[in-house]
């Protein structure tokens, strides 16, 4: 995959796009417009939450991920399945069968992301005890939420847990042990995340808080689902491949990470709009006496990811059922400290919402926006291709749209011209 500073996993299939406004209205950061009959994503505003992928009735919104055949570019292939994968198959009640199916796809070895989740949980417990940290601490494992905070909640940036995500922790360990085990050079070892999530693809290309991702690619669960399912129907669980823990498994579900921390004063919230509401309250300091806030962009947690197949609530129930067979966690208390998993770079505010280059210029655009808005029908119908009358007013003020893009304005103008012509006839 090409490195691009503005890379986004969420992208548009122009041929499939009908130019309807479903995605425009659904986008939580107002990052989509219809231009010339097709959706256009404003790159710097997109947080890869996947709402548009879920909502598009024509399946024109897609997530760019790596083709699974990419694994064959490497001599030694390692799969890092997200715990969400374990809830996808109605026919597999045993994780070992799913992992065996992954091996049949061509992977030499499997490192489960849930082991990384357990590491992060332990390090977070230690981190929360430290003096001087900004509370409440907000989880860092959901890249869409981190990105949302970066562009919209500058005052919450320093509340983000400064630890690596579970998948990056596991990728690092997997590569290290594979080098030791096989004697192969690092670049012959391919480490691939089996992902429920489009935003994880983006954070592999442009890592959050890390110089470089330890991954070599991200494969979507939906891509391998069919082939896995056909293997699963023929397999027996005769090999113990999993290192599952109840705690690690629960990370796939909203509230799981919080539960693994065993803290009383916490909030778990899922679904991007619910997340925004809670962050808004935090931002205004309306929530106090809370130590940890778990925000997951997808409804129900990672099981609700845009790249999954199974209904999130069904998947969630299945994972909870599977988790009953395992111990809470194997990690010994105090065996992992935050420093082991610390991010290399600070998560910073990215001001992408500015209207102009200077405050003066922005104020002029804002004043113009206000004037234009006064004349708008304020129905927020979306027919112009912008999510609201206010957004269209702003687009016009910035020179990105025209007043007659508004269908009501257009009708007004048309009626006016017809009247004029009629008067000429008289």
């Amino acid at each position, binding site marked *: 995959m090409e490195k691009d500073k503005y890379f986004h996993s969420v992208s548009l299939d122009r041929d499939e796009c009908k130019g309807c406004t479903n995605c425009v209205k659904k986008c939580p950061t107002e990052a989509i417009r219809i231009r010339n009959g097709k959706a256009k994503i404003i790159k710097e505003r997109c947080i890869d939450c996947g709402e548009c992928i879920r909502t598009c009735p024509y399946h024109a919104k897609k997530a760019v991920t790596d083709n699974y055949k990419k694994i064959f570019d490497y001599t030694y292939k390692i799969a890092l399945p997200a715990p969400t994968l374990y809830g996808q198959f109605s026919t597999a009640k045993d994780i070992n069968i799913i992992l065996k199916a992954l091996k049949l796809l061509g992977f030499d070895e499997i490192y489960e992301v849930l082991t990384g989740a357990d590491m992060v949980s332990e390090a977070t417990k230690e981190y929360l005890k430290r003096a001087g940290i900004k509370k409440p601490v907000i989880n860092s494992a959901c890249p869409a939420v981190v990105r949302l905070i970066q562009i*919209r909640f*500058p*005052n919450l940036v320093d509340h983000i847990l400064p630890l690596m995500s579970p998948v990056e922790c596991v990728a690092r360990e997997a590569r290290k042990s594979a080098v030791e085990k096989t004697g192969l050079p690092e670049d012959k070892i391919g480490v691939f995340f089996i992902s429920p999530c489009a935003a994880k693809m983006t954070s592999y290309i442009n890592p959050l808080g890390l110089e470089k991702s330890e991954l070599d690619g991200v494969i979507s669960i939906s891509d391998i689902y069919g082939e896995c399912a056909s293997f699963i129907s023929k397999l027996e669980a005769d090999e113990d491949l999993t290192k599952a823990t109840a705690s690690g498994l629960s990370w796939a579900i909203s509230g799981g990470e919080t539960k693994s921390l065993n803290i009383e004063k916490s909030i778990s919230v899922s679904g991007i709009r619910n997340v925004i509401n809670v962050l*808004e309250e935090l*931002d*205004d*300091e*309306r929530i106090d006496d809370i130590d940890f806030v778990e925000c997951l962009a997808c409804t129900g947690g990672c099981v609700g990811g845009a790249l999954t197949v199974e209904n999130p609530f069904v998947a969630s129930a299945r994972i909870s059922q599977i988790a009953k067979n395992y111990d809470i966690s194997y990690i010994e208390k105090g065996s992992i400290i935050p420093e082991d998993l610390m991010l290399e770079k600070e998560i910073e*505010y990215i*001001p992408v*919402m*500015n*209207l*102009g280059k*200077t*405050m*003066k210029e*922005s*104020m*002029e655009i*804002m*004043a113009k926006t*206000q004037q234009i808005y006064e004349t708008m029908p304020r129905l927020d119908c979306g027919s112009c291709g912008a999510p609201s009358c206010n957004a269209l007013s702003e687009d016009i003020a910035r020179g990105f749209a025209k007043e007659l893009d508004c269908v009501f304005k257009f009708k007004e103008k048309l009626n006016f011209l017809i009247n004029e012509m009629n008067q000429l006839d008289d």
Partner: protein
Amino acid sequence: MTDEILSLNYQVNGSDLQSAGVASSDVKKVLRKLGVSPEIIRKVAISMYEAEINMVIHANGGTIDVSISPEQIKVVLADNGPGIANIDLAMKEGYSTAPQTIREMGFGAGMGLPNIKKYADIMNITSELGKGTTVEIIVNIPQ
């Protein structure tokens, strides 16, 4: 209005505690779009939110006028409520005249005015019993 000032005006509905905070939330959004620094946005948003809540709890709503210039942000909240009998007392942390019903909802802890003072660079209150209260909040933008 000169070219250098941007005005925002809001009507605050007094009977609706749930929608209290809508105006301060909107101002926050505007300031972000103007490229105002996060620290300044925070000072304005929190002080204005407290004053907006006060208006709903004590004065059955009112009007808010916000004027933004590159040098400062001024928020004027005016109501026709009962007025404040003793402003010095009202400024004391923990002093509250909020009724029990409001306290049960988690408001009225007596931190409103002290919090406004804490976050605003300049705060002025004028109040007349039976007529209403005007709170002026000024946050300077360091040049």
